[in-house]
Structure formats: structure tokens, C-alpha cells
């Protein structure tokens, strides 16, 4: 009977344990679910942009164009006045204040948009055409439903007059949403509707590229030397322990190092992907060395002996046989290390990659931002329009991380060679 009872208890304990596990996993999924839902519900609206449809007459006098074939004239024509005059004309107003309120419904870049439009439609000179112009941030948020209308006018960013215009425009079917290509092609901007993470993506790309170029060969060589050639003594033991310690050093310390040595002593250009990449490669080095050593260790010694026995030198045995077999593990370790570097913010803040960068960087030597820093920057901005941009950038970053981690899994499974 006692035995019976004990067995029952054992089964119960097992059941209990399983329930704990299921609860833990459910909780984890629940929180991740909340996080992802929040990011997606905030971020998806950033992928569209509100446009105002307006009819304008491409007046040659207003533009100041006398000869359509004169490139210089077309280039320097007065698109600002064209849009200002034509747009304010399309909406009735009674005083200067109202006129100003009308024009601020458009994003300040309207003259460039008008120029782009005109360069594609030069033959329409003198005719009346319909043109889509990007709406201002407040208008955009109003149209996306993120803007509360029912608070007193003096605490609102849009006046009653402007709301009136909005309602009128919607009634006339003149407000549309288009895919927000600016998000992918533009750099940072003070105006949310014109800001994009295109510059941040390129910056991140250069940073990770520099990081890969520096850390992968050094880490691989270090791992190969330590695992295959180094004598086992006090010094190599000390190095080993320190590599493991380095992997645990907070990333901001690497940022301080980069700030102190790379920027202040070596005077490398501030805010650049070059310096960011070097700082991140210091952080990534131990994170590649450790998995690389583990995969070298996993290659059976019989392979080394087989190579040595046919007269291969030590270096040949290692580089012809051991390193290729250790590659899948090393590569997946590298990709995961780079994925961590991609999401790293702290060291980049210290070396000045937190700067406001409008230009899309053309090389690792140009000032640039990066995706996680862009998230940091936009999350601090007051404008409502940056909230959705922040979430959209996080979505982008998560997307890259998922792609990189899948690549790591793929590399491990696809290229792994089996031996008996």
C-alpha cells in the first residue's frame, strides 16, 4: 500500500512539473505576443503616407520659365511660389493667419515634390494638372486616426480652421494614402512625414560589414591557433580565461574604449560606421572565438591523425581538414555574433553615431546612424509621427535579426558534414 502511494506521488510530481513548464512557456508567449502586437499595431501605419490631391496650373510665369529646353531654368524654377500660390488659391481664406494655416497642412518639402513632378511632366507646362503632395505630420496623424479632435483648440496642434479644411478635403475625396517609400529611402528629418530609416539601414550595413571584416578573420585565426597550435601553459590558459571574460564585458565599455583610443588618440572620424564597426568588432571577437573553438574541438582527432599520417604538415592538416569541418559551426556563431552587434546601441552612442544624420552615408567614413540608434533617437522625439516610425524601425530591426538567425540555422544544418 505504501508502495502504491509512493508511485502515485511520483506520477503526480511528474504531472506537476509538466504543468509548471506549460505555464512558464504560456507566460513567455503571452508577453512576446503583447510586445509584438504593440509594435505592429503602432508601426504598420508608418508604412503609408497621407497625400493631398490638388489641382494646379503649371504656370510658366509663376515658375519663371521662358524656355522649356533650358535646363538651368527648369532646375532653378520657382516651384515654391507655384505650389504656395496654387494651393492656397484652392482653399478660401479670409486673412494672412489662415493662409499660413493652409500652407502648413503641406509637408515643407512640397517644392521638391513639385519639381520632381514637373521634371517628369514637362510637356504639361501651362496646363492644369492634378498633383499629389505629402501632407504635414499633423494632417497625416489626423488622417490615420492618431490625433484627438475633441480637446480644446488651444491645446491642439491643428486649429478649428484646419480641421474644417481637412473635413472638406476628405469630402471632396482629395485625401489619399500611398505606400511610404520615404521610410526606406530617406535619412532622418525633423519632420516625421519626411523621415526614413534608409540612412540607418545603410549605416547599420556598413557598421556590420566593418565588424565582419575585422572580427571574423581575427577570431578564426585566434581560435585555430589556441585550439590547434598553442602550447598548453599558464599564458595560454590566462588568454583563454580572458577571452571568456571579454564575452561578458558590458558593451558600453567597448564604446568607452573606442571613444578614448579610436576617436581621441587615433583621431578617426567621429560618428562613422568605421569607428562603430571597430568598436562592435571588439565586442564580437570573443563571441566568435568561443563557438569557433567549440566547433574545432568537435572535429574528431582521427581526422587530424589521418592527415598527419599521409605526411601532411600540421598546418596542412588543420587548414585542409579541420577548419573546413569546423566552418558550419563557426559561421553560425559568427552570424549570431553579428546579429547581436546589429542590435547593439550603447557603444554607438558613445562614439557619436547618435547624431542627427539627414544624408544617406555613401561610405563607412561618412557620419551615419544605425537602426537601433534610430530607434533610440525617434523614441525620444516629441512629435506624434515618430511613434509609428519608432515601431516601424523596430519591426525592420527584428526582421533583420530573424533573417540572420535563420541564416545561422541554415548554415549549421546545410553545410554540416557527417562523419561516422
Amino acid at each position, binding site marked *: 500500500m505504501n508502495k502504491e502511494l509512493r508511485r502515485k506521488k511520483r506520477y503526480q510530481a511528474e504531472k506537476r512539473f509538466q504543468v509548471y513548464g506549460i505555464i512558464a512557456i504560456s507566460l513567455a508567449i503571452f508577453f512576446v505576443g503583447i510586445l509584438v502586437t504593440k509594435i505592429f499595431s503602432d508601426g504598420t501605419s508608418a508604412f503609408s503616407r497621407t497625400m493631398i490631391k490638388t489641382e494646379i496650373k503649371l504656370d510658366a510665369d509663376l515658375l519663371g520659365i521662358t524656355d522649356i529646353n533650358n535646363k538651368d531654368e527648369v532646375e532653378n524654377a520657382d516651384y515654391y511660389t507655384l505650389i504656395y500660390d496654387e494651393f492656397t488659391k484652392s482653399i478660401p481664406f479670409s486673412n494672412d493667419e489662415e493662409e499660413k494655416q493652409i500652407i502648413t497642412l503641406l509637408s515643407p518639402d512640397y517644392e521638391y515634390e513639385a519639381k520632381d513632378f514637373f521634371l517628369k511632366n514637362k510637356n504639361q507646362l501651362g496646363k492644369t494638372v492634378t498633383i499629389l503632395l505629402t501632407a504635414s505630420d499633423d494632417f497625416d496623424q489626423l488622417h490615420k486616426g492618431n490625433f484627438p479632435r475633441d480637446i480644446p483648440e488651444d491645446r491642439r496642434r491643428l486649429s478649428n480652421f484646419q480641421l474644417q479644411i481637412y473635413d472638406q478635403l476628405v469630402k471632396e475625396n482629395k485625401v489619399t494614402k500611398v505606400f511610404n517609400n520615404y521610410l526606406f529611402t530617406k535619412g532622418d528629418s525633423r519632420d516625421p512625414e519626411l523621415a526614413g530609416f534608409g540612412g540607418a539601414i545603410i549605416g547599420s550595413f556598413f557598421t556590420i560589414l566593418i565588424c565582419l571584416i575585422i572580427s571574423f578573420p581575427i577570431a578564426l585565426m585566434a581560435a585555430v591557433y589556441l585550439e590547434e597550435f598553442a602550447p598548453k601553459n599558464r599564458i595560454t590558459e590566462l588568454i583563454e580565461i580572458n577571452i571568456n571574460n571579454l564575452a561578458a564585458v558590458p558593451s558600453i565599455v567597448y564604446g568607452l574604449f573606442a571613444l578614448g583610443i579610436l576617436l581621441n588618440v587615433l583621431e578617426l572620424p567621429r560618428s562613422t560606421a568605421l569607428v562603430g564597426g571597430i568598436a562592435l568588432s571588439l565586442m564580437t571577437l570573443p563571441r566568435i572565438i568561443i563557438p569557433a573553438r567549440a566547433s574545432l574541438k568537435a572535429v574528431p582527432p582521427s581526422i587530424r*591523425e589521418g592527415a598527419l599520417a599521409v*605526411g601532411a604538415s600540421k598546418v596542412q592538416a588543420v587548414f585542409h581538414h579541420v577548419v573546413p569541418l569546423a566552418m558550419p559551426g563557426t559561421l553560425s556563431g559568427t552570424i549570431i555574433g553579428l546579429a547581436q552587434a546589429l542590435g547593439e546601441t550603447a557603444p554607438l552612442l558613445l562614439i557619436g553615431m547618435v547624431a542627427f544624420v539627414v544624408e544617406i552615408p555613401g561610405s563607412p567614413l561618412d557620419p551615419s546612424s544605425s537602426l537601433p540608434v534610430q530607434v533610440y533617437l525617434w523614441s525620444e522625439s516629441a512629435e506624434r509621427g515618430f511613434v509609428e516610425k519608432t515601431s516601424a524601425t523596430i519591426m525592420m530591426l527584428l526582421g533583420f535579426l530573424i533573417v540572420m538567425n535563420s541564416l545561422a540555422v541554415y548554415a549549421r544544418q546545410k553545410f554540416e558534414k557527417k562523419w561516422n
Partner: protein
Amino acid sequence: MNREAKVISKNVDVFYGNKQALFDINLEIFKNEVTALIGPSGCGKSTFLRCINRMNDVIDICKISGEIEIDGFNIYKQGVDVVRLREKVGMVFQKPNPFPKSIYDNIAYGPNIHGIAQNKQELDEIVENSLKKAALWNEVKDRLNEPGTGLSGGQQQRLCIARAISINPEIILMDEPCSALDPIATAKIEELIDSLKSSYTIVIVTHSMAQAARVSQRTGFFHLGKLIEMDETDKIFKNPNNKMTQDYITGRFG
């Protein structure tokens, strides 16, 4: 019989750290013969075998004193090139260890690193001849590009033998080559050893007394790091000088 000593071991002591593994080994291995080394586990026969191509160099804590002469040349003299030594002294291991590459590449690796073949055609010939000598050609000639690790255990071991002879060594060391194989595969390897002895000097470590008796001309018996007795195989198995040898081969210990 006119016999020529290929390998002569003189006062060889081997230490792993502080532990002495071999004590004062003196023996001769004759050319174009199969010499078997027998003895209980841990007696040092494999250690001695690995001294002949300096495979023990890989182990940091292993120290060797004494001399091993091959063709009258001491391979432990300072400045000896182990790569050239291993070109001359091939080795086959206990567990088949083909490279995880194609059958062709497994054989071609040695000739490639030593620059033995002048062109692709010569390399093809070396691969074919090595596989033929290892009695594997007929089984694999249609699938040379398939991985060597996909072969059966016995085939893998013959592939390793083919790999060892691809660089045309003078001596082949075999460290319990059949211990991971079934009896049929073992019989094939033994047959192969017999046919190879006309061109190579073979030293084989084995746990199977029957195998030593079948394939070897001379047998050495090791016990606790010492060479107890070495003589003609017939004599060792029928009328050994030493009581311990007698006890071991009749199965009274070990």
C-alpha cells in the same frame, strides 16, 4: 634466408609525463615481412607503433629517448623532417578514418600535398592503382565522387589502406586495423595484408592472436611496456622461450 632489417629500435624509452610507457625496447623489423605486435591492453604496443612514424610527437607530454633507425638512419636525430618520414612510413588506424570527402579526394590528398602526380591523368592512375592494390577498385570504381564516409566499415578501412599506399611508402603501420570490423571484412583485410607484403614492410598491432598467427612472419610480445619476446611467429606460437608468452598465447592471462 637473407633478411634485411628495415627498422631497428635501440633502447627506446617512452614517457607520458611522469609515467613510463615503454622500457628499453630493442627489436628489428625485417623488410617485406609482416611483423605482428601482440600483448594485453595498455602494454605499449600501439605506443611503440606510433614511435615508428613519430605520431607521438602530436602528444605534448610524450617524451621519447633512444633511437629508431629506418634504413640505418635515426629518425629521432635532430632536424629530421617528420613530413618526409611519414611519406615513407604510412599508417592505418584502429577506427577507419576516411576524410569526409569523396573517395577520389581521399586517395588524391596525399599525392597532391607531396606533388607526386604531374597532371590529372597521373593522379587518376595513382588513385586507380591504390584502390586496386587495396582490393577496393571493383567495388567503388563507379562512384569515386561519392563520400568516403558512406562506405561500409570494411570498405572504409580498405580506403584508408589505399590512402596510405597512395604516396608509395616503404613501411605501413597498422594499429589494430580489424578491431572495428566483422569477420568477413577482417578476412578481406588479412588477405590484402598478405598481398601487400611483397612491396611493403608491414607492422601490425593486433589483439587477435589468431590474426597474428595467420598474417605475420615474426611476432613480438609486449607486456607492461616491455618487449618480453620476439621471434618467428611459428616459434612464438608453438614453442616460446618465455613462460609469460606461453601463458598469454594459451589464454591464461590477458
